[in-house]
C-alpha cells in the first residue's frame, strides 16, 4: 500500500517594520556594515529591557486577519532558551502558549484543484543574528573562527504554523507561494526566500498502513522553492525506503544540503534540547481590542485570491491567465489600468503575460520600473483592437519606445504606424502593384467567386503589410472594391 505523505509547514516572515521587534534599531540590515544595527537591547546588554514595536503587532494582526485567524486579546510572550552564538540573550522572545492569531486557513490551487490548508496559528517572535565564516574585508576565517553579526538579531518575524494538511511537494510549494503572495499584497513582508525574509521549515511524515500518522521529521535549511520541493521528494523516498526495509524512523530534525541533495540528521546536537519555555515577565500582555482589530480589518484591501476570481469574472480570462496577472499586485494593477484605457482584456492579458513579462525578465526589473506606462500600453493595444495597426507593428512600436526611449506617439511615427498616412493616389499605386503581383487572386474576385470575401481580405492584408500599417484598412478595402468590381 502506498503511504500517504503528510506535511506541515512553518513559515517565518520578516515583517516590514522600520525598526526591530523589541528595540529601535533599523531593520535595513542587508548590506549594512556588521554590528551597526545594534543597541543594548538586541545585544542583550545587562540592564536592557525589551520594548514592543507597535507596527509589528499591527502587521501580525493584519496578516492574521487575511489568513482568517482569530485574533487573540491579551496574548503573551515566552522565552525559549538555547545557547548559540547568534542568540545574545540565550533565549528567544517568542509566543508559545498564547499566539496573537489562532486557527485560520489558506486556500491553494494545485493542478486546477482547490484545497484548503488549515493553520494552527500565527505568532510573533524575534529573529537571530547571523554567523559569517568570512570577514567583510574578505579574509577567510580558516579553521579557527566564525564571526557573529547581530544586525539581523531582533528583526520581527511572524511565524505561520500550518496544520499537517499538505500532501505533496506541489501543494507545499503552492502553499508557500500563496503565503508569499499574500504577504506582498499586504505589504507586511518582502517574502523573499533569496534574502531570507521568507524562510520555511518542513515537517513531514508518512502515514502508516493503518492510517495512523508516522514518525515526524523536521527539515530545516530549505532556502528556495526548489529546495523545498527537492527536500520533500528526497525525504519521501528516504522514509519510504526505510519503512520498506522495516526500519524504524526517529523523530528528529534534519538539515537539507542543497549541494548534495540530501537531508542530514542533526542528531546528537539537539537530543539534549529542552527549550524551557516560560512566560516573559519583562513584557505585559499584548492588548488588541475589538475596535483595534476592526480598524485593521477595514484597512484590508482586495485579497489576491479575490482579485484572481474577480479578474476571471470581470475580464472573462482563464484561471491560468488570471493567476499570472494577479501574482503580483503591481502587475494586476498595470493590467487593470491598461484595460481602463479601452484595451481589450484578452489582448492586454496576452501582452502583459508575454511581451511585457519577457522584457521585465530580460531587463531584470519590476513592473513599477517598466518604461512603458500602463496607459501607453493600453492605447497601443487599443490600436490593435481597432485594427489600426497589426500585432507585429505594435511590437515594433513597443521596441521603439524601449530602445529609443520614445513616447507612444513618437514611436508610432517612427515606425510609420500612423493610420491613414498613406492615402489617396499613393495608396492606389501600391494597391495597383499588389493586384499586379496577385493577378490570379484578382481574377477570382473579379469573376465573382469570392463569395465569403476571404480573397479580398487577403489582398487587404497584403496592402496593409506593404504599407506597414500606415494605410487606413477601410480605405484599402474601398479602393480594392472599386478596382476589382
Amino acid at each position: 500500500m502506498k503511504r500517504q505523505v503528510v506535511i506541515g509547514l512553518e513559515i517565518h516572515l520578516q515583517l516590514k517594520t522600520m525598526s526591530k521587534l523589541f528595540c529601535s534599531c533599523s531593520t535595513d540590515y542587508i548590506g549594512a556594515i556588521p554590528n551597526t544595527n545594534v543597541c543594548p537591547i538586541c545585544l542583550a546588554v545587562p540592564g536592557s529591557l525589551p520594548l514592543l514595536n507597535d507596527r509589528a503587532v499591527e502587521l501580525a494582526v493584519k496578516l492574521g486577519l487575511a489568513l482568517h485567524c482569530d485574533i487573540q486579546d491579551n496574548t503573551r510572550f515566552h522565552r525559549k532558551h538555547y545557547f548559540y552564538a547568534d542568540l545574545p540573550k540565550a533565549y528567544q522572545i517568542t509566543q508559545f502558549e498564547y499566539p496573537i492569531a489562532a486557527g485560520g486557513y489558506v486556500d491553494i490551487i494545485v493542478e486546477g484543484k482547490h484545497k484548503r490548508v488549515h493553520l494552527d496559528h500565527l505568532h510573533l517572535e524575534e529573529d537571530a543574528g547571523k554567523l559569517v565564516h568570512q570577514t567583510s574585508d574578505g579574509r577567510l576565517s580558516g579553521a579557527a573562527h566564525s564571526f557573529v553579526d547581530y544586525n539581523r538579531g531582533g528583526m520581527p518575524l511572524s511565524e505561520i504554523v500550518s496544520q499537517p494538511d499538505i500532501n505533496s511537494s506541489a501543494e507545499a510549494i503552492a502553499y508557500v507561494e500563496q503565503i508569499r503572495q499574500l504577504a506582498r499584497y499586504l505589504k507586511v513582508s518582502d517574502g523573499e526566500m533569496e534574502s531570507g525574509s521568507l524562510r520555511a521549515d518542513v515537517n513531514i511524515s508518512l502515514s502508516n498502513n493503518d492510517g495512523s500518522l508516522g514518525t515526524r521529521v523536521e527539515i530545516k535549511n530549505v532556502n528556495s522553492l526548489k529546495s523545498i520541493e527537492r527536500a520533500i521528494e528526497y525525504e519521501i523516498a528516504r522514509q519510504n525506503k526505510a519503512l520498506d526495509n522495516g526500519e524504524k524512523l526517529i523523530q528528529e530534525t534534519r538539515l537539507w544540503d542543497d549541494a548534495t541533495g540530501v537531508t542530514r540528521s542533526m542528531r546528537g546536537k539537539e537530543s539534549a534540547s529542552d527549550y524551557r519555555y516560560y512566560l516573559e515577565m519583562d513584557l505585559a500582555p499584548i492588548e488588541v481590542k475589538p475596535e483595534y482589530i476592526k480598524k485593521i480589518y477595514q484597512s484590508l484591501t482586495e485579497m489576491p485570491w479575490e482579485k484572481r476570481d474577480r479578474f476571471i469574472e470581470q475580464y472573462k480570462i482563464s484561471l491560468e491567465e488570471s493567476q499570472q496577472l494577479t501574482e503580483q499586485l503591481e502587475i494586476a494593477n498595470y493590467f487593470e489600468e491598461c484595460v481602463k484605457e479601452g484595451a481589450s482584456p484578452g489582448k492586454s492579458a496576452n501582452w502583459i503575460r508575454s511581451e511585457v513579462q519577457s522584457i521585465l525578465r530580460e531587463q531584470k526589473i519590476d513592473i513599477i520600473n517598466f518604461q512603458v506606462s500602463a496607459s501607453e500600453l493600453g492605447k497601443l493595444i487599443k490600436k490593435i483592437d481597432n485594427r489600426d495597426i497589426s500585432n507585429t507593428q505594435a511590437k515594433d512600436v513597443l521596441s521603439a519606445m524601449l530602445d529609443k526611449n520614445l513616447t507612444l506617439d513618437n514611436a508610432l511615427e517612427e515606425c510609420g504606424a500612423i493610420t491613414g498616412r498613406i492615402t489617396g493616389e499613393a495608396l492606389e499605386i501600391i494597391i495597383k502593384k499588389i493586384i499586379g503581383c496577385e493577378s490570379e487572386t484578382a481574377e477570382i474576385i473579379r469573376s465573382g467567386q469570392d463569395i465569403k470575401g476571404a480573397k479580398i481580405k487577403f489582398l487587404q492584408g497584403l496592402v496593409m503589410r506593404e504599407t506597414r500599417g500606415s494605410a487606413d484598412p477601410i480605405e484599402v478595402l474601398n479602393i480594392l472594391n472599386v478596382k476589382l468590381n
Partner: protein
Amino acid sequence: MEFYKLSAKEIADGVRGKKWTAKEVLTSFLTRIKTCDSKLNAVVTLCEKNAHEDAKKLDEAIARGETLGLLAGVPFLVKDNFCTDGIRTTCASKMLHDWIPSYDATAIKNMKMAGAILMGKTNMDEFAMGNTTESSIFGPTLNPRDLTRVPGGSSGGSAAAVAAGYCPIALGSDTGGSIRQPAAFCGVQGMKPSYGQISRYGIVGYVSSLDQIGPITRNINDMAIVMDVLAKADENDSTCDAYDRPSFSAAVKKTDLKGKKIAVLTGFDKECVDKSLLDAINTTVQFCCEAGAEIIEVNLPTANKHAVACYYMIALGDASSKLACYDGMRYGYHEDGKNLFEMYKKSRNKGFGNEVRRRILIGTCILTRGYYENYYVPAVKVRQMIADEYADLFKTVDALICPISPTLPYKKGYVEDDSATIYLRDVFTSTANLAGLPSISLNVGFTPEGLPTNIQLLGPRFDDENLLSIASVIENYAGSPSVADLSVEGVL
C-alpha cells in the same frame, strides 16, 4: 561642618540656601569614605572625578540662580548592579569585573536630574545572590554597627554606607529582601516599593517579575523625597506602570494613625525569632495604638507556609534565564575554548562564583521538562494564592507588621544550620516581592549591645504613600537611627 550627620533634606536645603556648596559637601563625604572604607569595604568604586564635575556644575547653576531639584548637592551611592555611564558595573562578580556600561540606569538619571551627586558604587553579593554581602569578589563588607557582623545582603554595601554616614541616601535592589534585610541589619531605613513603581531599566536583571529598586536612608522623610524622584513611568521599562504618582513627601507629614487599621502577623514559629525582634514588634504596636490605630492579629497561612518554596522556584528559574546572556562573547569574562560550547562553559565557570553557578543549575533544572510541570507551575499558582491572600487582607487593613529577619545580624562567616531559621530567613521578606507589594524595613531601636532592632511594614499594591505615611508616624515615636559611631568601632 559634620555633613555626614545631616539628612538629605538638610543638605539640599543648605545647598539651595547657599549655606554651603555642593563641592564642600561632596569633599567632606569623599573624605569620610576614604578614611573609613579600607576597613568597612562598603564601596567598590568611587567616581570622584565625575562627582566633582557634577558638583561644580551644580554650584555654577546655583550661582546663576537656577531652580534646583529636590536633592540638590546630595551625594549618593548605588549598588554595583546599577548601570552607570562610563563607570564600571561589576555586580561584584568576576564575570563583569571590567565591564563599563555606556548608559545610566533610569534611576541614576532621575537622581542626577534632581541634583543628587553620584559618588560611586557599593558592594553586594555576587549578582545579588545572597544575604550577607560575603560572596562579593571584592571581599565582605563589615557591619558599621558591629564590625564582627555582616551587613546583610545583597545590598549590604548600600546599607552599610548609609549607616556609616558615607551618604544620606543609597540605592539598592530587592528581589526577595535585598534592600530590607541589610537595612535592618545596619540599622537604617529601607524600602522596596510596589512592583512597577520605579523603572528597572539599567539594573542588571536577576528576576524580572520580582526585582524592584528602592532607597536606603536614615529617615522616612528622605525616603519619601527619593520616592518622589524615582517613582516615574519610564518608556524604557514596559513593566514600570504609567499612572500618576502622588507626592510621597506630602504623605509623610501626618502625625497620627487615627482611622488606620494595622494588622500584626501571627502563625509563624516565634521560637525561631530573636526575642529583641519580637519586642520591637510589640513596642511598635504600642506606638501605633498610641497614635490612634486599630490593631488586629492576622494569620496568612499560604504565605507563611509556602512563600519560600514558591520564591525559590520563581527566583531561581528566572535567574537561570537572565544570567544566560553571560557567555563570554560580547562583554564580561572570557576564556577561549576549542568550540563554542566549551568557550561558554569555561567563561561561565570561571566568571561566576560558586553560589551563582549553583543557583543557575537549580534554576535550569526547575525549568526542564517534568520539573517545570511539577514544581514551577505549582509555584506560579501558589504565587497567585499568596497575592490573593494579601489582596484580601488589604481590603480591610491598611498595613501589616511583621519581622524582617528572624535574627539579629549574623556573625561573619556564620552558616545557619537550623532549617527552620533558614526558612524564616526569607519568608517574611519574599512575600512582598511575590505579591508585588510595597514594604518598608523600619529601624525602631537598638539592643543594649547596640544591634539594630526593626520591623517590617507591608501595604497594598501601589499604596506606597500610605505605607510611607504610617512608617513616618512610627518613626516619630521610635526616632530615626543616627550614624554609626565609627570611632567606637575603631574605624575612624
